[in-house]
Structures are given as C-alpha cells and as structure tokens.
C-alpha cells in the first residue's frame, strides 16, 4: 500500500497530463485548469515541510552546541525575521514591503550587497583558475586555449583593436562549433530526461520513493 498508492498516483497523473497536452478539448482543459489550481497548493505543503525541517535541524544544532552552532542563528533569524517584517509588523513601525520599510532596507542594504559580493568573487577565482588550467599540454588543450583567448578578446571592445577578424572569429566559434556541441549535449540530456520520466511514470524507476521503493 505504502508503495502502490504513490506509484499509481504518478502513473495516472503522468499519463493523464501527457494525453491532455495533445488534446485541446474542453474537458481536457478542465483537467488542465484543475491541475494548475491544485499543483501550487500541493507545492505549498512542500514549503511547510522545508521550513519545518530547516528549523528543526538548526534548532537541534543550537541546543546540542554542535560544531559552528552559532551560524545556525544566522539561518534562523533571517528565516523568520524577514517574513515578520514584511507580513506581521505594523506599517506604522516600518513593517510591510514598501520602500521605506525595514524589510526593504534589509533586502537592499544587506541581502543585495552580500549576494553581489559573493558572485563578484568569481572574477578573482576565474582569473586564478585560467592561469593554472589553460596550458597547452596537448593538441586538444591547445585548441581549447586558443578558442578561449579568441572568444575572450572578441567579446570585449578592446578586441577590435587587433582587427575586425577577432570579434568575428569569436562570434563564429559561439555560433557554430559551440552551437553544435551544445545541441548534441542538449539532445542527449533531453532523451535521457524523457527516458527517466517514462521510467518513473511506468514505475520502473522507483528511487524517488526513497526507502519505500525497496
């Protein structure tokens, strides 16, 4: 029962949605509309589950004084603080999502700079990684190295100083060899996803059931 019911729900739901997509009939649209209404509701339960398990995990860490337990406060305080400022705190005290509220202030002056800083660190690490990785160790590595240099120079205005051929060659690499390789990868991934999805729908692949699938 524990295994059969979820498998049946997935199979019926999956087949129904495949058939629905290809039949633009009124009844088919009713099924589709119902699905659109129900799916976010089911998704909302996943949110409750997610917030619940995150809270449980970090509150346990704090209680047990586990390693780096102090950082758990950095998870829990914003997790509940931001919704509190946006939804519960009265507007007269700076609550709500308006420009002058606490929520907006924390978003614009804490979250935005933190995330921007984290991402900008990439520029430093990419430079260091490029220095160590781009070595002409073999014929293939040399092709990769040359392509990288041409695309890098072609993508910035200074590349045009060396002549129009450089940006044009960079674009050619992106538009043709890159496109061909990406398309091959995408097709492979696409067929893989299709096969996996069919296996899940027909109950062949059961790993998603976790322990219950065994």
């Amino acid at each position: 029962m524990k295994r059969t019911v979820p498998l049946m729900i997935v199979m019926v739901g999956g087949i129904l949605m495949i058939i629905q997509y290809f039949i633009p009939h009124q009844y088919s649209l009713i099924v589709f509309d119902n699905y659109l209404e129900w799916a976010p509701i089911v998704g909302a339960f996943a949110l409750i589950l997610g917030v619940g398990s995150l809270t449980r995990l970090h509150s346990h860490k704090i209680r047990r004084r586990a390693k780096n337990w102090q950082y758990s406060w950095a998870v829990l305080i914003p997790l509940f603080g931001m919704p509190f400022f946006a939804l519960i705190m009265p507007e007269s005290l700076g609550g709500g999502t308006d420009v002058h509220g606490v929520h907006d202030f924390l978003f614009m002056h804490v979250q935005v700079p933190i995330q921007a800083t984290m991402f900008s660190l990439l520029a430093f690490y990419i430079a260091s990684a490029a220095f160590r990785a781009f070595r002409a160790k073999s014929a293939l590595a040399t092709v990769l190295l040359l392509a990288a240099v041409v695309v890098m120079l072609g993508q910035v205005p200074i590349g045009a100083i060396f002549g129009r051929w450089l940006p044009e060659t960079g674009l050619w690499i992106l538009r043709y060899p890159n496109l061909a390789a990406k398309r091959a990868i995408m097709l492979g991934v696409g067929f893989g996803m299709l096969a996996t999805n069919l296996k899940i729908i027909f109950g062949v692949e059961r790993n998603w059931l976790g322990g219950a699938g065994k």
Partner: protein
Amino acid sequence: MGAVNIWEKMLNLDRRWIFLGIGIISIVFFLVGFGMPVTTTKEVENIFDFVNELGPDDAIFIGFDFAPGTQAENMPMAVAVLRHAFHNNIPVFMTAIVPLGQGMAVSALNYVTDPAIDGHYERVLFEDWADYREAGITNREDIIAAWERDGNVLPEGALGWVFEGRDYALLGYLPLFHLVILGMTNSIETQFPVDYHGNPIGEMPMLKEHKSLRDVDLAVTNAASGACTYWITYAREKIGLPIAFGVTGVMATDYYPYIQSGQIIGQMGGLRGAAEYEVLLQENGITATTDKAFRGMDVQSAEHIFIILLIVIGNIAYFAGGFHKKTRLKGRG
C-alpha cells in the same frame, strides 16, 4: 638550475597576486573609463528591432528572473528593455521566476523612474489616477491630457509619464512559475489576481486589453538560471509567444541552439549584451547616453587582457622551464 627555479616560481605564482591584480584593475578602470566603442551583434539587434516595432496596442513581459548576485549583468539589460518599452509606450508586465527577482523588479522600476536621474520617466501610481478610470478614461492619450489638465506638469528632465496599470504592472513572484506561465496562457488574472502592491489587476486597463499570454507580443526573460527555458517550453511551444533571452555571460553559450532553431528571437549575453542594447538605445535617440553596462565594458576589457597575459606567462613558464617534457614522461609512464 636557477633559471628553472624562476619558471617554477612563475608557474606556482601565489594566487593572492592574481587577486590583487584583478582588484586593482577593476577599481582603476571603473574610475577611469575610456568609453571604448561597443559594436552590436545580430543576436541583440533582433531583440531591439522586435521591441522597436511594437507600440501602445501591444504588450510585453519582462522577467526579472535573477537574484542580486547577478544583478551587475542582468539588471542593465532589464533596465534597457524597460526604458525602450516606456519610450514606445508599450505596456509592460513585470514578473519574477525567483523570489528575490521581485526585489530586482522593484529596483529596476525605481531606477528608471528616479527623479534624480536625467532621462527618467515620471511614475503615477495606480491609486493616484483612480478618478480617471472611474470616469472611463483609459486611453493613454486621454489619461495624460486629463492628468495635465488637472495641473500636473512633467518635471524637467523627465521623458514622459508612466501610469501604473496602463503602462506597467508589477506582477512579481509566484512559486512554481512554470505552472504560472501555463496558467497565463489562458488568463493572466487567474494567476495574479492582484499585483505586487495589492492592486486588483482586473481593474487595470492594460489587462483588459491583454487578458492572457495569447494577447502578448513578447516575453524578455532576464535570467541567471536555466529556469528561463520555462518560457520556451510553456509559452513559446504551447502558444507561439516570441521569447528573448537576457542571460549571464557564463550561460550565454548554452542558448545559441535556441536562436538557430528560431525558438528565441535573440539573446543578450552578459554585460556585453546589455551594453549592446544600451548602444542601440542611444544610436536610435531613445536615451541620451549609455548606462552602467557600457561603462562596465572598459573594466571587462582590461580584465580579459590581464587574464590572457596570465595565460601567456603561464605557458611561457611551462615550456621554457621544460615542464612539458616532464608531463609527457609522466603521461607515458
């Protein structure tokens, strides 16, 4: 022996020197811009031309599908398209696939309508022109005429009025956005009964004229993740909605197949793509100057040259120090 040591030292250069170099170059070239010319590519020109053909009877979606981490790349392209739409009086629906994208949409709108910036658009909130809606005035020209007749004057430096609900609607974020796109193919209002500020979107004139994605002419998704393909899978393939991408530099190579197949009309790739759009806006007299992306291209030029120099130095040290022979021996062994 001594020479080999020098090459070895060069190969094992402490990465903190590289970090320092990148840091200094970023700061110096940010402060001292050279304004190197940016040429445009057909991937960006196609988007610009498509938007340029649209007018007040059309509508577009601009997706703020990125978090603050990538705003340096994604924000300028979103702002550029928003400016273009406002210039051509094209109604704009603003959405977000990711929760933090909603804040980015608010920031973009605040930036484009900031009175402190020359060339801004003067924003009129939904509640501020409620009387005109109640009087049945919903045509853009009529609203402006009535609004100015009531003593409102366009501030100096402003390029025009933008009325919330007539020229733009900030719809914001909803979870499971692929389902939201699917739902909007039937009705936008069922998915977003109210906008970000809680205004009922059913009362917005732009929604009355564009009830579903089938009445919309273009969706430009400015994204930092593969979620941008939702727009292709669920809007382009289902109802044929034209899609354009604005993606980060590292993602740009992934989506060339969609351009060739005609599934997207074009793509703005990274800061370069945004800079190209800014150049097109300026060349066509839509903005007086270029903006942040164009300025950023000087920094990017210098950093790319620095990285290429590092690669060249690394390879010189690798061959001059005889390390290529060692690698070969190691490989055979």
